[in-house]
C-alpha cells in the first residue's frame, strides 16, 4: 500500500500522514460516540494506584467502534508495510483525546514535546520510571484540523534518529530515568494538519506532543500505540536500535542502497 518514497520519507522524517485511511462512516460513528460521552458521561478512568489522572472518553478505550478504525481499515496494512507482514499486534485499546480550546483571548504557547513512556506520576508511569511499550503512534483525526495551534498532533521531525544517536553518545537510554532530555533538536516542530479520516503514523522515539488549541473547535483525535509482536522482548533496546521492529522500512532502505543488506 505504501510506496517506497513514503517508506523512505518515514525513515527520514519519522512520521507520515496518509489522507483518507478511515472511511467517513466509521469516523462519524466514532465522533458521535465521543461527543455523546463528553456530554453525558464526562471524565473517568482515574486510577491513582496506576498514576493515572481522569480523562474524557475513558469508557470508549476498548469500544468496538473506536478500535475498528484500526483493525478493520487500511491502517493495519500500512502498519505492516512499515513493520513487516504479520508483525503488528491487533489494536485492543485506543484513546480518544478531545483537546478543548483555550479560553477566549488566551494565546497559544509554543508547543513542547516529549518522548513517550517517561513517567510523571499522572500518565500511567511513576516519576523516575520509563518504559518502551510500543512501536508506533497511530493517530486518526475525527474531524478536520486546519491551521496551526488547533490542537494538532505535533512532531519534531528527525528526532527518532537524533535520539538514537543521543542515547548512544550519552551512556544509553538509562538517561530517560532523569526525565525528558532537553538537547537542541534538529528541526522545529510541525503541527500536523489533516482531515477527518486521515492517519498520522510516527515512530515511537519521535518527540511529539499536542499543541495548544486556540481555534474555535474541539480537536478530536484517537491515538493508539501500535505494537510489534516482539515489543516486550526488544524492550528498551529499541531506543538504541530504532529500526529493529521495522522490517518494511529496513527493506526499503536496503533496496535503495541506503543501508547495506
Amino acid at each position, binding site marked *: 500500500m505504501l510506496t517506497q518514497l513514503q517508506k523512505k520519507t518515514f525513515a527520514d522524517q519519522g512520521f507520515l500522514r496518509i489522507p483518507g485511511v478511515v472511511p467517513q462512516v466509521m469516523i462519524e*460513528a466514532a465522533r*458521535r460516540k465521543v461527543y455523546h460521552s*463528553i*456530554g453525558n458521561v464526562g471524565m473517568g478512568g482515574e486510577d491513582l494506584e496506576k498514576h493515572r489522572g481522569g480523562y474524557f472518553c475513558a469508557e470508549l478505550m476498548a469500544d468496538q467502534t473506536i478500535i475498528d478504525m484500526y483493525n478493520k481499515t487500511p491502517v493495519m496494512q500500512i502498519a505492516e508495510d512499515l513493520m513487516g507482514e504479520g508483525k503488528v499486534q491487533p489494536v485492543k485499546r485506543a484513546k480518544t483525546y478531545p483537546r478543548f480550546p483555550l479560553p477566549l483571548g488566551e494565546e497559544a504557547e509554543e508547543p513542547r514535546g516529549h518522548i513517550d513512556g517517561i513517567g510523571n506520576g499522572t500518565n500511567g508511569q511513576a516519576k523516575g520510571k520509563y518504559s518502551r511499550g510500543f512501536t508506533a503512534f497511530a493517530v486518526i483525526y475525527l474531524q478536520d484540523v486546519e491551521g496551526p495551534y488547533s490542537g494538532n498532533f505535533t512532531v519534531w521531525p528527525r528526532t527518532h534518529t537524533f535520539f538514537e544517536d543521543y542515547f548512544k553518545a550519552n551512556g544509553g537510554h538509562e538517561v530517560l530515568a532523569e526525565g525528558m532530555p532537553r538537547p537542541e533538536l534538529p528541526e522545529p516542530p510541525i503541527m500536523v494538519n489533516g482531515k477527518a479520516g486521515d492517519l498520522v503514523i510516527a515512530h515511537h522515539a519521535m518527540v511529539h506532543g499536542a499543541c495548544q488549541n486556540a481555534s*474555535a473547535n*474541539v480537536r478530536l483525535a484517537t491515538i493508539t500505540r501500535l505494537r510489534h509482536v516482539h515489543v516486550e522482548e526488544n524492550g528498551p533496546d529499541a531506543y538504541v536500535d530504532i529500526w529493529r521492529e521495522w522490517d518494511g522500512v529496513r527493506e526499503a532502505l536496503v533496496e535503495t542502497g541506503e543501508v547495506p543488506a
Partner: protein
Amino acid sequence: MLTLKQKREFVDRGFLKIEGAIPMVQVEAARRSMNHSIGEVGLGGENKDSNRSPFFCAELCTEPVITDLFNGATVMAALESLMGEGNVLPVNWAKPYPRFPLLMGKDPSNPGGHIDGTGNGLNGTAKGDYNRGFTAFAVVYLMDLPTPWCGNFTVWPGSHRTCEAYFKEVGHEVLSNGTPQIEFPEPPVQVTGKAGDLILAHHAMIHTGGPNASPDVRLAVIARPKHIKTEELGKDAYIDIWAEWPGVHDVLEEAEAV
C-alpha cells in the same frame, strides 16, 4: 430592515430565519468559549431555590461574547422591525445550549414541543406555575446544521395563533397543567441553517430542541428578548399575541382587509 414579505411570513408562521445575521468573527469567538467551557468548566448553574438543574456553559450566560451576539445592529434591527423602534430591551442574559448526540445506534424519536414558561421544577419555574417573561426567541446557530435530526431548533408553524385561539376559549390559566395537548396546523419544522444564522420566533410558539442523531454536538445560543412593556402586559399577551409587535400591525390590518 425586514421586508414586508418577511413580516408576513413571521405573522403567519410565527418564526423567521435570517441568514448570515451574525459576523463569523463573533460566531467563532462564541464557539471557542462554549467549547472551552464544555471541556474545562463542565456543568454549573444549579439553583434548587429557583428550580434550576445544572447545565453546560452556565458561566457564559452573561458574558459579552454571548450577549453581544444579540445586541449588535442586525439582531436588534430585525427585532425592532417587528416589535417597534425603541421597544426592545438589550439582551443581558442568553443561554448557550450544547445538544449532544444520542447514543450510537439509538434512533431519534419524533420531537415533542412545549410552550415556554410552564414549570417542571427543573427549568427555573416550579411545577404548576407558569409565566410569560419574554416576547421572542432569538436563536443563533454557532455551527452548520445542514439537515434535520442534528439538534435543530424545532418549531410548529402557526402554533402561536392556535394557542392564542385556544387560550381565548379556555383561558391561559390552563397552562398551569403544562403545555396544552391540542392539534396544531402543521407538523414540526426542524430548522436547518448555517453558523451565523438567526432564527426569531414568537413567544407563544410551540418549539423544542430537536433530537440530535448527528455525529456532532449542536452548538446554539438562545436569548429571549423582551419588549419594554413585557412585565406590564404579563400573561395577557397569551390572548393578545401581537400586543408587543407594532411592527407587524400593518400586516395584520392588510390581512383583515382581505
